[in-house]
Protein backbone atom coordinates (compact mmCIF):
# COMPACT_ATOMS: atom_id res chain seq x y z
CA UNK A 1 0.00 0.00 0.00
CA UNK A 2 1.19 3.53 -0.76
CA UNK A 3 2.34 5.45 2.27
CA UNK A 4 0.32 8.58 2.84
CA UNK A 5 2.59 11.57 3.16
CA UNK A 6 1.38 14.99 4.20
CA UNK A 7 1.02 17.26 1.20
CA UNK A 8 3.86 19.66 0.54
CA UNK A 9 3.29 22.95 2.22
CA UNK A 10 1.40 21.53 5.17
CA UNK A 11 3.06 22.05 8.50
CA UNK A 12 1.45 19.02 10.09
CA UNK A 13 3.89 16.67 11.75
CA UNK A 14 3.75 13.34 9.94
CA UNK A 15 1.96 10.96 12.25
CA UNK A 16 2.46 7.28 12.37
CA UNK A 17 -0.87 5.62 12.97
CA UNK A 18 0.19 2.21 11.76
CA UNK A 19 -0.04 -0.63 14.21
CA UNK A 20 1.00 -4.24 13.94
CA UNK A 21 -1.11 -7.10 15.24
CA UNK A 22 0.76 -10.34 14.64
CA UNK A 23 1.47 -10.42 10.92
CA UNK A 24 -1.27 -7.96 10.25
CA UNK A 25 -0.31 -4.37 9.55
CA UNK A 26 -3.10 -1.86 9.99
CA UNK A 27 -3.01 1.63 8.51
CA UNK A 28 -4.61 2.85 11.73
CA UNK A 29 -5.89 1.28 14.92
CA UNK A 30 -9.65 1.77 14.46
CA UNK A 31 -11.59 -1.42 13.69
CA UNK A 32 -15.30 -2.18 13.32
CA UNK A 33 -16.33 -4.75 15.96
CA UNK A 34 -17.92 -8.09 15.17
CA UNK A 35 -21.70 -8.13 14.89
CA UNK A 36 -22.03 -4.37 14.68
CA UNK A 37 -21.25 -3.79 11.02
CA UNK A 38 -22.44 -7.03 9.44
CA UNK A 39 -20.16 -7.75 6.50
CA UNK A 40 -19.72 -4.09 5.67
CA UNK A 41 -22.32 -3.77 2.95
CA UNK A 42 -25.04 -1.72 4.64
CA UNK A 43 -22.86 0.53 6.78
CA UNK A 44 -20.91 1.52 3.69
CA UNK A 45 -23.75 3.78 2.63
CA UNK A 46 -23.06 5.87 5.72
CA UNK A 47 -19.34 5.46 6.23
CA UNK A 48 -16.16 5.62 4.16
CA UNK A 49 -15.19 2.22 5.49
CA UNK A 50 -11.89 2.11 3.59
CA UNK A 51 -10.37 4.78 5.78
CA UNK A 52 -10.55 2.48 8.81
CA UNK A 53 -7.93 0.03 10.02
CA UNK A 54 -9.99 -3.10 9.47
CA UNK A 55 -13.42 -4.68 9.74
CA UNK A 56 -14.30 -7.73 11.83
CA UNK A 57 -17.14 -9.71 10.27
CA UNK A 58 -20.24 -10.89 12.07
CA UNK A 59 -19.33 -14.20 13.70
CA UNK A 60 -19.56 -17.03 11.19
CA UNK A 61 -20.61 -20.53 12.23
CA UNK A 62 -20.39 -23.73 10.25
CA UNK A 63 -24.12 -24.00 9.70
CA UNK A 64 -26.68 -21.27 9.25
CA UNK A 65 -28.08 -19.97 12.53
CA UNK A 66 -31.57 -18.45 12.73
CA UNK A 67 -30.82 -16.57 15.94
CA UNK A 68 -32.84 -16.07 19.10
CA UNK A 69 -36.55 -15.23 19.39
CA UNK A 70 -37.41 -11.50 19.45
CA UNK A 71 -37.15 -9.04 21.06
CA UNK A 72 -33.42 -9.30 20.46
CA UNK A 73 -32.29 -5.79 21.29
CA UNK A 74 -33.44 -3.34 23.92
CA UNK A 75 -32.13 -0.08 25.27
CA UNK A 76 -30.42 -0.24 28.68
CA UNK A 77 -29.32 2.73 30.79
CA UNK A 78 -26.28 4.07 28.87
CA UNK A 79 -26.16 0.89 26.90
CA UNK A 80 -27.65 -1.82 24.76
CA UNK A 81 -28.79 -5.28 25.72
CA UNK A 82 -28.79 -7.83 22.91
CA UNK A 83 -29.46 -11.50 22.38
CA UNK A 84 -28.99 -11.86 18.64
CA UNK A 85 -27.76 -15.44 19.11
CA UNK A 86 -25.08 -15.37 16.41
CA UNK A 87 -27.63 -15.30 13.61
CA UNK A 88 -25.66 -15.76 10.39
CA UNK A 89 -25.85 -17.56 7.10
CA UNK A 90 -23.13 -20.11 7.87
CA UNK A 91 -19.77 -20.63 6.18
CA UNK A 92 -21.21 -21.33 2.71
CA UNK A 93 -23.12 -18.06 2.71
CA UNK A 94 -19.94 -16.30 3.83
CA UNK A 95 -17.79 -17.82 1.09
CA UNK A 96 -20.28 -17.24 -1.72
CA UNK A 97 -22.30 -14.19 -0.72
CA UNK A 98 -20.02 -12.09 1.47
CA UNK A 99 -16.48 -12.74 0.26
CA UNK A 100 -16.90 -11.18 -3.22
CA UNK A 101 -17.94 -7.92 -1.62
CA UNK A 102 -15.28 -8.08 1.09
CA UNK A 103 -12.63 -8.72 -1.57
CA UNK A 104 -13.58 -5.42 -3.16
CA UNK A 105 -12.78 -3.50 0.03
CA UNK A 106 -9.30 -2.09 0.27
CA UNK A 107 -8.93 -2.78 3.99
CA UNK A 108 -8.03 -5.98 5.82
CA UNK A 109 -10.88 -8.23 6.85
CA UNK A 110 -10.79 -10.07 10.15
CA UNK A 111 -13.08 -13.09 10.00
CA UNK A 112 -14.85 -13.89 13.26
CA UNK A 113 -15.61 -17.58 13.74
CA UNK A 114 -17.31 -19.67 16.40
CA UNK A 115 -18.24 -23.29 16.86
CA UNK A 116 -19.76 -25.73 19.29
CA UNK A 117 -16.94 -28.22 19.20
CA UNK A 118 -13.27 -28.13 18.28
CA UNK A 119 -13.92 -29.76 14.94
CA UNK A 120 -16.14 -26.89 13.84
CA UNK A 121 -13.50 -24.32 14.75
CA UNK A 122 -10.95 -26.22 12.67
CA UNK A 123 -13.22 -26.46 9.62
CA UNK A 124 -14.10 -22.78 9.83
CA UNK A 125 -10.47 -21.71 10.23
CA UNK A 126 -9.48 -23.81 7.23
CA UNK A 127 -12.21 -22.31 5.08
CA UNK A 128 -11.67 -18.65 5.94
CA UNK A 129 -7.89 -19.06 5.69
CA UNK A 130 -8.37 -19.69 1.98
CA UNK A 131 -9.79 -16.22 1.45
CA UNK A 132 -7.20 -13.67 0.40
CA UNK A 133 -8.77 -10.60 1.97
CA UNK A 134 -9.18 -12.40 5.30
CA UNK A 135 -5.97 -11.33 6.97
CA UNK A 136 -6.72 -12.46 10.50
CA UNK A 137 -9.12 -14.69 12.39
CA UNK A 138 -10.91 -13.57 15.51
CA UNK A 139 -12.02 -16.61 17.46
CA UNK A 140 -15.21 -15.76 19.29
CA UNK A 141 -15.03 -17.76 22.51
CA UNK A 142 -17.23 -15.36 24.39
CA UNK A 143 -20.72 -14.92 22.95
CA UNK A 144 -23.14 -14.95 25.88
CA UNK A 145 -26.09 -15.75 23.62
CA UNK A 146 -25.39 -19.30 22.53
CA UNK A 147 -24.82 -22.55 24.34
CA UNK A 148 -21.68 -24.48 23.50
CA UNK A 149 -21.53 -28.22 23.63
CA UNK A 150 -17.76 -28.22 24.01
CA UNK A 151 -17.71 -27.12 27.64
CA UNK A 152 -19.83 -27.44 30.76
CA UNK A 153 -19.39 -23.74 31.42
CA UNK A 154 -21.69 -21.16 29.80
CA UNK A 155 -18.85 -19.58 27.81
CA UNK A 156 -15.85 -21.23 26.17
CA UNK A 157 -13.77 -18.26 27.31
CA UNK A 158 -14.49 -19.23 30.92
CA UNK A 159 -12.87 -22.60 30.47
CA UNK A 160 -9.11 -22.23 30.53
CA UNK A 161 -8.51 -25.71 29.20
CA UNK A 162 -10.95 -25.21 26.32
CA UNK A 163 -9.27 -21.91 25.40
CA UNK A 164 -5.85 -23.58 25.40
CA UNK A 165 -7.06 -26.48 23.31
CA UNK A 166 -8.91 -24.42 20.72
CA UNK A 167 -6.13 -21.85 20.30
CA UNK A 168 -3.29 -24.36 20.12
CA UNK A 169 -5.19 -26.48 17.59
CA UNK A 170 -6.04 -23.47 15.42
CA UNK A 171 -2.44 -22.35 15.61
CA UNK A 172 -1.58 -25.53 13.75
CA UNK A 173 -4.48 -25.04 11.32
CA UNK A 174 -3.82 -21.53 10.08
CA UNK A 175 -0.98 -19.21 9.26
CA UNK A 176 -3.20 -16.17 9.57
CA UNK A 177 -3.02 -13.85 12.52
CA UNK A 178 -4.97 -15.56 15.28
CA UNK A 179 -6.93 -13.49 17.77
CA UNK A 180 -9.13 -15.15 20.41
CA UNK A 181 -11.88 -12.89 21.72
CA UNK A 182 -12.29 -13.10 25.46
CA UNK A 183 -15.15 -12.63 27.88
CA UNK A 184 -14.96 -10.21 30.79
CA UNK A 185 -17.25 -12.51 32.75
CA UNK A 186 -14.50 -14.59 34.36
CA UNK A 187 -12.84 -14.75 37.76
CA UNK A 188 -9.48 -13.64 36.42
CA UNK A 189 -9.18 -12.56 32.80
CA UNK A 190 -5.37 -12.47 33.08
CA UNK A 191 -5.28 -16.23 33.53
CA UNK A 192 -7.36 -16.83 30.42
CA UNK A 193 -5.29 -14.37 28.40
CA UNK A 194 -2.07 -16.06 29.53
CA UNK A 195 -3.46 -19.43 28.55
CA UNK A 196 -4.30 -18.09 25.09
CA UNK A 197 -0.85 -16.55 24.73
CA UNK A 198 0.79 -19.79 25.81
CA UNK A 199 -1.23 -21.63 23.19
CA UNK A 200 0.23 -19.45 20.46
CA UNK A 201 -2.20 -16.67 19.60
CA UNK A 202 -0.92 -13.45 18.00
CA UNK A 203 -3.11 -11.09 19.98
CA UNK A 204 -6.27 -11.07 22.11
CA UNK A 205 -9.50 -9.12 21.64
CA UNK A 206 -11.49 -8.01 24.65
CA UNK A 207 -14.14 -7.55 25.78
CA UNK A 208 -17.25 -9.23 24.48
CA UNK A 209 -20.56 -8.21 26.06
CA UNK A 210 -21.39 -8.69 29.75
CA UNK A 211 -24.15 -11.22 30.51
CA UNK A 212 -27.14 -9.18 31.68
CA UNK A 213 -30.91 -8.85 31.72
CA UNK A 214 -33.76 -6.36 32.09
CA UNK A 215 -37.37 -6.86 33.17
CA UNK A 216 -40.50 -5.04 32.02
CA UNK A 217 -42.35 -4.23 35.25
CA UNK A 218 -45.68 -3.76 33.44
CA UNK A 219 -45.78 -7.16 31.81
CA UNK A 220 -43.59 -8.69 34.55
CA UNK A 221 -41.51 -10.44 31.91
CA UNK A 222 -37.88 -10.27 30.86
CA UNK A 223 -37.44 -7.73 28.09
CA UNK A 224 -35.50 -10.06 25.81
CA UNK A 225 -37.15 -12.99 24.08
CA UNK A 226 -34.15 -15.06 25.15
CA UNK A 227 -34.50 -13.78 28.77
CA UNK A 228 -30.79 -12.92 29.12
CA UNK A 229 -28.37 -11.24 26.77
CA UNK A 230 -25.15 -9.29 26.51
CA UNK A 231 -24.65 -5.71 27.66
CA UNK A 232 -22.59 -3.28 25.59
CA UNK A 233 -22.15 0.46 25.17
CA UNK A 234 -20.89 3.31 27.36
CA UNK A 235 -22.09 1.67 30.60
CA UNK A 236 -19.45 -1.06 30.28
CA UNK A 237 -16.51 1.20 29.42
CA UNK A 238 -14.88 1.42 32.86
CA UNK A 239 -15.29 -2.33 33.35
CA UNK A 240 -13.78 -3.10 29.96
CA UNK A 241 -10.91 -0.66 30.52
CA UNK A 242 -9.92 -2.52 33.66
CA UNK A 243 -9.84 -5.79 31.72
CA UNK A 244 -7.54 -4.25 29.12
CA UNK A 245 -5.30 -2.76 31.81
CA UNK A 246 -5.02 -6.10 33.60
CA UNK A 247 -4.40 -8.16 30.48
CA UNK A 248 -1.87 -5.71 29.02
CA UNK A 249 0.28 -6.08 32.11
CA UNK A 250 0.02 -9.87 32.05
CA UNK A 251 0.90 -10.78 28.44
CA UNK A 252 3.32 -9.71 25.72
CA UNK A 253 1.16 -10.09 22.62
CA UNK A 254 -0.95 -7.07 21.57
CA UNK A 255 -4.35 -6.39 23.09
CA UNK A 256 -7.26 -5.18 20.95
CA UNK A 257 -9.54 -3.30 23.31
CA UNK A 258 -13.22 -2.55 23.12
CA UNK A 259 -16.30 -1.97 25.23
CA UNK A 260 -18.28 1.25 25.15
CA UNK A 261 -15.97 3.23 22.88
CA UNK A 262 -18.20 6.06 21.71
CA UNK A 263 -15.71 8.79 20.86
CA UNK A 264 -12.01 9.49 20.46
CA UNK A 265 -11.51 10.19 24.16
CA UNK A 266 -12.80 6.72 25.00
CA UNK A 267 -10.56 5.16 22.37
CA UNK A 268 -7.50 7.01 23.68
CA UNK A 269 -8.25 5.74 27.19
CA UNK A 270 -8.18 2.20 25.86
CA UNK A 271 -4.93 2.85 24.02
CA UNK A 272 -3.34 4.37 27.13
CA UNK A 273 -4.38 1.28 29.10
CA UNK A 274 -2.59 -0.95 26.62
CA UNK A 275 -4.75 -1.47 23.54
CA UNK A 276 -2.69 -1.60 20.35
CA UNK A 277 -5.92 -1.25 18.38
CA UNK A 278 -9.51 -0.50 19.32
CA UNK A 279 -12.82 -1.86 18.11
CA UNK A 280 -15.95 0.21 17.81
CA UNK A 281 -19.23 -1.64 18.35
CA UNK A 282 -22.41 -0.16 19.75
CA UNK A 283 -21.33 3.33 18.66
CA UNK A 284 -21.93 2.25 15.04
CA UNK A 285 -25.63 1.96 15.85
CA UNK A 286 -25.82 5.39 17.41
CA UNK A 287 -23.93 6.93 14.53
CA UNK A 288 -22.80 4.77 11.61
CA UNK A 289 -19.83 7.06 10.93
CA UNK A 290 -18.72 7.19 14.59
CA UNK A 291 -15.58 5.14 13.85
CA UNK A 292 -14.25 7.77 11.45
CA UNK A 293 -14.89 10.50 13.99
CA UNK A 294 -12.92 8.43 16.47
CA UNK A 295 -10.00 8.07 14.05
CA UNK A 296 -9.95 11.79 13.34
CA UNK A 297 -10.14 12.56 17.06
CA UNK A 298 -7.14 10.34 17.75
CA UNK A 299 -5.15 12.19 15.07
CA UNK A 300 -6.09 15.53 16.57
CA UNK A 301 -5.12 14.40 20.04
CA UNK A 302 -1.73 13.24 18.80
CA UNK A 303 -1.19 16.51 16.98
CA UNK A 304 -2.09 18.50 20.06
CA UNK A 305 0.15 16.43 22.30
CA UNK A 306 2.97 16.38 19.76
CA UNK A 307 2.97 12.59 19.56
CA UNK A 308 4.40 11.28 16.30
CA UNK A 309 3.85 7.54 16.69
CA UNK A 310 0.71 5.99 18.09
CA UNK A 311 2.80 3.19 19.55
CA UNK A 312 4.14 5.73 22.03
CA UNK A 313 0.63 5.96 23.45
CA UNK A 314 -0.02 2.25 23.79
CA UNK A 315 0.07 1.41 27.49
CA UNK A 316 1.36 4.89 28.31
CA UNK A 317 -0.91 5.26 31.34
CA UNK A 318 1.24 4.71 34.40
CA UNK A 319 0.04 3.77 37.84
Amino acid sequence: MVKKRPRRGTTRVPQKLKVKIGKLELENPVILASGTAGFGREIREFLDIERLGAIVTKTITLHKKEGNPPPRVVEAPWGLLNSIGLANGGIKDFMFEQVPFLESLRIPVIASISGDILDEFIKLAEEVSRVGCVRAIEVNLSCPNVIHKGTRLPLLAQDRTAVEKIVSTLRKTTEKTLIPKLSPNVTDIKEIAKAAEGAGCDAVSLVNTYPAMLVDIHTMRPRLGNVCGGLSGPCIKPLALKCVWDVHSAIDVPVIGMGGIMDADDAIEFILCGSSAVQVGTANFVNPSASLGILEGIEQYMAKKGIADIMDLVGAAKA
Partner: protein
Amino acid sequence: MKQFKAKIISNRKIAPEHYILSFKRPEKERRIEPGQFFYVKISDSYRPLLRKPFSVHKISGYSIEILYKTIGEGTRALSKRKKGDILDMMGPLGKGFDAVRRHKKVMLVGGGHGVAPLYALAKQLEYPAVPAGRLSIFIGARTKDHIVCDKKFRRLGARVYIATDDGTRGHKGFVTDLLTRKILGSRDKDTGEGRGKGHTAIYACGPKEMLKSVWKVARRYGIPCQFSLEEYMACGIGTCLGCAVKTQSGYKLVCKDGPVFDAKEIVW
Protein backbone atom coordinates in the same frame (compact mmCIF):
# COMPACT_ATOMS: atom_id res chain seq x y z
CA MET B 1 -25.94 9.62 2.16
CA LYS B 2 -29.07 8.88 4.06
CA GLN B 3 -27.86 10.72 7.15
CA PHE B 4 -28.55 14.40 7.59
CA LYS B 5 -29.12 17.21 10.05
CA ALA B 6 -32.77 18.13 10.17
CA LYS B 7 -33.91 21.53 11.29
CA ILE B 8 -37.12 21.43 13.32
CA ILE B 9 -39.82 23.61 11.79
CA SER B 10 -42.32 22.90 14.54
CA ASN B 11 -43.03 20.40 17.28
CA ARG B 12 -46.61 20.76 18.39
CA LYS B 13 -48.83 18.95 20.84
CA ILE B 14 -51.99 17.65 19.18
CA ALA B 15 -53.33 15.62 22.11
CA PRO B 16 -52.24 15.08 25.74
CA GLU B 17 -49.64 12.50 24.71
CA HIS B 18 -49.31 13.05 20.97
CA TYR B 19 -47.09 15.42 19.04
CA ILE B 20 -46.37 16.24 15.42
CA LEU B 21 -42.83 17.18 14.56
CA SER B 22 -42.15 18.86 11.27
CA PHE B 23 -38.67 19.16 9.84
CA LYS B 24 -37.06 20.39 6.67
CA ARG B 25 -37.04 17.79 3.97
CA PRO B 26 -33.57 16.42 3.17
CA GLU B 27 -32.59 17.92 -0.16
CA LYS B 28 -31.12 14.92 -1.85
CA GLU B 29 -33.92 12.51 -1.07
CA ARG B 30 -36.29 12.66 -3.98
CA ARG B 31 -38.38 9.66 -3.11
CA ILE B 32 -39.96 9.10 0.28
CA GLU B 33 -42.61 6.40 0.53
CA PRO B 34 -45.42 6.07 3.04
CA GLY B 35 -44.41 3.28 5.42
CA GLN B 36 -40.74 4.22 5.41
CA PHE B 37 -39.24 5.59 8.60
CA PHE B 38 -36.71 8.06 9.88
CA TYR B 39 -34.24 6.99 12.53
CA VAL B 40 -33.77 9.89 14.90
CA LYS B 41 -31.02 10.70 17.41
CA ILE B 42 -33.09 12.57 19.93
CA SER B 43 -30.39 13.99 22.19
CA ASP B 44 -26.61 14.05 22.42
CA SER B 45 -26.69 12.33 25.80
CA TYR B 46 -26.40 8.60 26.40
CA ARG B 47 -29.96 8.49 27.73
CA PRO B 48 -31.51 7.42 25.52
CA LEU B 49 -28.49 6.03 23.75
CA LEU B 50 -30.11 4.61 20.65
CA ARG B 51 -31.88 6.34 17.83
CA LYS B 52 -35.67 5.94 17.73
CA PRO B 53 -37.66 5.04 14.63
CA PHE B 54 -40.67 7.08 13.47
CA SER B 55 -42.78 6.56 10.39
CA VAL B 56 -43.37 9.25 7.83
CA HIS B 57 -46.68 10.88 8.69
CA LYS B 58 -46.87 13.54 6.02
CA ILE B 59 -44.71 14.32 3.04
CA SER B 60 -44.67 17.67 1.32
CA GLY B 61 -42.31 19.41 -1.06
CA TYR B 62 -40.58 21.31 1.68
CA SER B 63 -41.10 19.38 4.90
CA ILE B 64 -41.65 15.99 6.48
CA GLU B 65 -43.87 15.34 9.46
CA ILE B 66 -43.71 12.58 12.01
CA LEU B 67 -46.43 11.92 14.56
CA TYR B 68 -45.38 10.41 17.87
CA LYS B 69 -46.77 9.41 21.21
CA THR B 70 -44.77 10.05 24.37
CA ILE B 71 -44.30 6.67 25.99
CA GLY B 72 -40.78 6.68 27.40
CA GLU B 73 -37.52 8.51 27.82
CA GLY B 74 -36.80 9.10 24.15
CA THR B 75 -40.19 10.30 23.03
CA ARG B 76 -40.53 12.53 26.10
CA ALA B 77 -37.15 14.09 25.33
CA LEU B 78 -38.24 14.56 21.72
CA SER B 79 -41.34 16.45 22.87
CA LYS B 80 -39.04 19.02 24.51
CA ARG B 81 -37.10 19.81 21.37
CA LYS B 82 -37.90 23.24 19.96
CA LYS B 83 -38.33 24.95 16.62
CA GLY B 84 -34.91 25.66 15.13
CA ASP B 85 -33.21 22.76 16.96
CA ILE B 86 -31.19 20.38 14.83
CA LEU B 87 -31.79 16.63 14.94
CA ASP B 88 -29.44 14.03 13.49
CA MET B 89 -31.50 11.73 11.31
CA MET B 90 -31.09 8.70 9.11
CA GLY B 91 -33.63 8.00 6.45
CA PRO B 92 -35.88 7.43 4.80
CA LEU B 93 -35.16 3.80 5.70
CA GLY B 94 -36.91 0.52 4.97
CA LYS B 95 -39.56 -0.51 2.49
CA GLY B 96 -42.88 1.26 2.42
CA PHE B 97 -46.42 0.27 1.50
CA ASP B 98 -47.06 -1.10 -1.93
CA ALA B 99 -49.86 1.21 -2.89
CA VAL B 100 -49.77 0.81 -6.64
CA ARG B 101 -52.46 -1.83 -6.90
CA ARG B 102 -55.80 -0.20 -7.45
CA HIS B 103 -58.54 -1.43 -5.21
CA LYS B 104 -62.12 -0.26 -5.28
CA LYS B 105 -62.17 -0.14 -1.52
CA VAL B 106 -59.37 0.51 0.89
CA MET B 107 -59.62 0.00 4.63
CA LEU B 108 -56.99 1.45 6.90
CA VAL B 109 -56.71 0.22 10.47
CA GLY B 110 -54.66 2.15 13.00
CA GLY B 111 -54.19 1.28 16.64
CA GLY B 112 -52.67 3.89 18.96
CA HIS B 113 -49.88 5.77 17.21
CA GLY B 114 -50.38 3.34 14.31
CA VAL B 115 -52.38 6.00 12.49
CA ALA B 116 -49.11 7.84 11.85
CA PRO B 117 -47.98 6.07 8.66
CA LEU B 118 -51.57 5.56 7.47
CA TYR B 119 -52.09 9.25 6.91
CA ALA B 120 -49.18 9.48 4.49
CA LEU B 121 -50.58 6.42 2.76
CA ALA B 122 -54.10 7.85 2.61
CA LYS B 123 -52.75 11.01 0.99
CA GLN B 124 -51.06 8.90 -1.64
CA LEU B 125 -54.21 6.87 -2.21
CA GLU B 126 -56.40 9.94 -2.65
CA TYR B 127 -58.63 10.13 -5.68
CA PRO B 128 -58.22 8.89 -8.39
CA ALA B 129 -56.32 5.92 -6.96
CA VAL B 130 -59.25 5.21 -4.70
CA PRO B 131 -62.60 6.65 -5.78
CA ALA B 132 -64.15 9.15 -3.38
CA GLY B 133 -65.98 7.54 -0.51
CA ARG B 134 -64.20 4.25 -0.91
CA LEU B 135 -61.55 4.92 1.71
CA SER B 136 -62.32 4.09 5.33
CA ILE B 137 -60.17 4.33 8.39
CA PHE B 138 -60.68 2.45 11.63
CA ILE B 139 -58.98 4.09 14.58
CA GLY B 140 -58.63 2.28 17.87
CA ALA B 141 -57.19 3.56 21.12
CA ARG B 142 -57.36 3.13 24.87
CA THR B 143 -59.37 6.25 25.50
CA LYS B 144 -60.74 9.31 23.68
CA ASP B 145 -57.67 11.45 24.38
CA HIS B 146 -55.62 9.04 22.30
CA ILE B 147 -57.76 9.35 19.19
CA VAL B 148 -55.83 11.57 16.80
CA CYS B 149 -56.05 12.54 13.15
CA ASP B 150 -59.74 11.61 12.75
CA LYS B 151 -60.57 15.08 11.37
CA LYS B 152 -57.65 14.99 8.99
CA PHE B 153 -58.77 11.69 7.53
CA ARG B 154 -62.31 13.00 7.19
CA ARG B 155 -60.98 15.97 5.24
CA LEU B 156 -59.42 13.53 2.82
CA GLY B 157 -62.86 12.14 2.23
CA ALA B 158 -62.39 9.00 4.27
CA ARG B 159 -65.08 7.45 6.40
CA VAL B 160 -63.86 7.33 9.97
CA TYR B 161 -64.76 4.62 12.47
CA ILE B 162 -63.63 4.94 16.06
CA ALA B 163 -63.34 2.47 18.91
CA THR B 164 -61.98 2.96 22.42
CA ASP B 165 -61.24 0.39 25.09
CA ASP B 166 -63.13 2.37 27.72
CA GLY B 167 -65.99 3.50 25.47
CA THR B 168 -65.30 7.21 26.01
CA ARG B 169 -65.59 7.66 22.25
CA GLY B 170 -67.10 5.60 19.47
CA HIS B 171 -67.57 1.89 19.82
CA LYS B 172 -66.62 0.41 23.19
CA GLY B 173 -64.32 -2.45 22.40
CA PHE B 174 -61.95 -3.48 19.67
CA VAL B 175 -61.52 -1.64 16.42
CA THR B 176 -61.61 -5.02 14.70
CA ASP B 177 -65.28 -5.40 15.78
CA LEU B 178 -66.04 -2.40 13.57
CA LEU B 179 -63.88 -3.72 10.78
CA THR B 180 -65.64 -7.08 10.78
CA ARG B 181 -69.04 -5.38 10.73
CA LYS B 182 -68.02 -3.24 7.79
CA ILE B 183 -66.63 -6.17 5.83
CA LEU B 184 -69.80 -8.17 6.44
CA GLY B 185 -71.96 -5.15 5.50
CA SER B 186 -70.26 -4.82 2.16
CA ARG B 187 -71.03 -8.40 1.24
CA ASP B 188 -74.00 -9.57 -0.77
CA LYS B 189 -76.95 -9.67 1.63
CA ASP B 190 -78.55 -12.77 0.13
CA THR B 191 -75.62 -14.98 -0.70
CA GLY B 192 -73.11 -13.64 1.84
CA GLU B 193 -70.51 -13.59 -0.87
CA GLY B 194 -67.77 -11.05 -1.17
CA ARG B 195 -67.15 -8.79 -4.12
CA GLY B 196 -64.40 -10.85 -5.61
CA LYS B 197 -60.64 -10.75 -5.47
CA GLY B 198 -58.94 -7.40 -5.66
CA HIS B 199 -62.01 -5.51 -4.57
CA THR B 200 -60.84 -4.57 -1.10
CA ALA B 201 -57.42 -4.08 0.49
CA ILE B 202 -56.46 -3.54 4.09
CA TYR B 203 -53.46 -1.58 5.36
CA ALA B 204 -52.81 -1.57 9.09
CA CYS B 205 -50.39 -0.45 11.76
CA GLY B 206 -50.64 -0.91 15.50
CA PRO B 207 -50.02 -3.27 18.40
CA LYS B 208 -49.29 -6.90 17.46
CA GLU B 209 -52.46 -8.20 19.09
CA MET B 210 -54.56 -5.84 16.99
CA LEU B 211 -52.78 -6.80 13.78
CA LYS B 212 -53.26 -10.43 14.61
CA SER B 213 -57.01 -10.04 14.88
CA VAL B 214 -57.16 -7.89 11.74
CA TRP B 215 -55.40 -10.70 9.91
CA LYS B 216 -57.81 -13.27 11.32
CA VAL B 217 -60.79 -11.38 9.88
CA ALA B 218 -59.07 -10.52 6.61
CA ARG B 219 -57.92 -14.06 6.00
CA ARG B 220 -61.41 -15.41 6.55
CA TYR B 221 -62.74 -13.14 3.78
CA GLY B 222 -59.69 -13.39 1.53
CA ILE B 223 -58.73 -9.72 1.78
CA PRO B 224 -55.06 -8.88 1.15
CA CYS B 225 -53.33 -7.03 3.99
CA GLN B 226 -50.18 -5.01 4.33
CA PHE B 227 -49.00 -4.36 7.87
CA SER B 228 -46.40 -1.94 9.12
CA LEU B 229 -44.65 -3.78 11.95
CA GLU B 230 -42.66 -2.49 14.89
CA GLU B 231 -39.77 -4.15 16.62
CA TYR B 232 -36.98 -2.80 18.79
CA MET B 233 -34.08 -1.61 16.69
CA ALA B 234 -30.40 -0.99 17.22
CA CYS B 235 -28.77 -0.20 13.85
CA GLY B 236 -31.83 0.57 11.71
CA ILE B 237 -30.01 -0.48 8.51
CA GLY B 238 -29.82 -4.26 8.60
CA THR B 239 -26.43 -4.92 10.19
CA CYS B 240 -27.22 -5.96 13.78
CA LEU B 241 -30.02 -8.45 13.03
CA GLY B 242 -31.82 -7.12 16.09
CA CYS B 243 -35.23 -6.30 14.67
CA ALA B 244 -36.14 -9.81 13.54
CA VAL B 245 -39.71 -10.95 12.89
CA LYS B 246 -40.63 -14.52 12.16
CA THR B 247 -41.92 -15.05 8.62
CA GLN B 248 -42.85 -18.08 6.55
CA SER B 249 -39.34 -17.97 5.09
CA GLY B 250 -37.42 -17.53 8.35
CA TYR B 251 -36.57 -14.39 10.24
CA LYS B 252 -36.74 -11.11 8.36
CA LEU B 253 -35.67 -7.64 9.42
CA VAL B 254 -38.19 -4.91 10.17
CA CYS B 255 -35.69 -2.17 9.36
CA LYS B 256 -34.56 -3.52 6.01
CA ASP B 257 -37.08 -6.06 4.67
CA GLY B 258 -39.94 -4.06 6.24
CA PRO B 259 -41.36 -2.29 8.16
CA VAL B 260 -44.21 -3.10 5.76
CA PHE B 261 -44.91 -6.80 5.26
CA ASP B 262 -47.62 -8.75 3.53
CA ALA B 263 -49.66 -10.18 6.41
CA LYS B 264 -49.63 -13.66 4.95
CA GLU B 265 -45.84 -13.73 5.20
CA ILE B 266 -45.85 -13.32 8.96
CA VAL B 267 -45.88 -16.23 11.38
CA TRP B 268 -48.44 -15.10 13.98
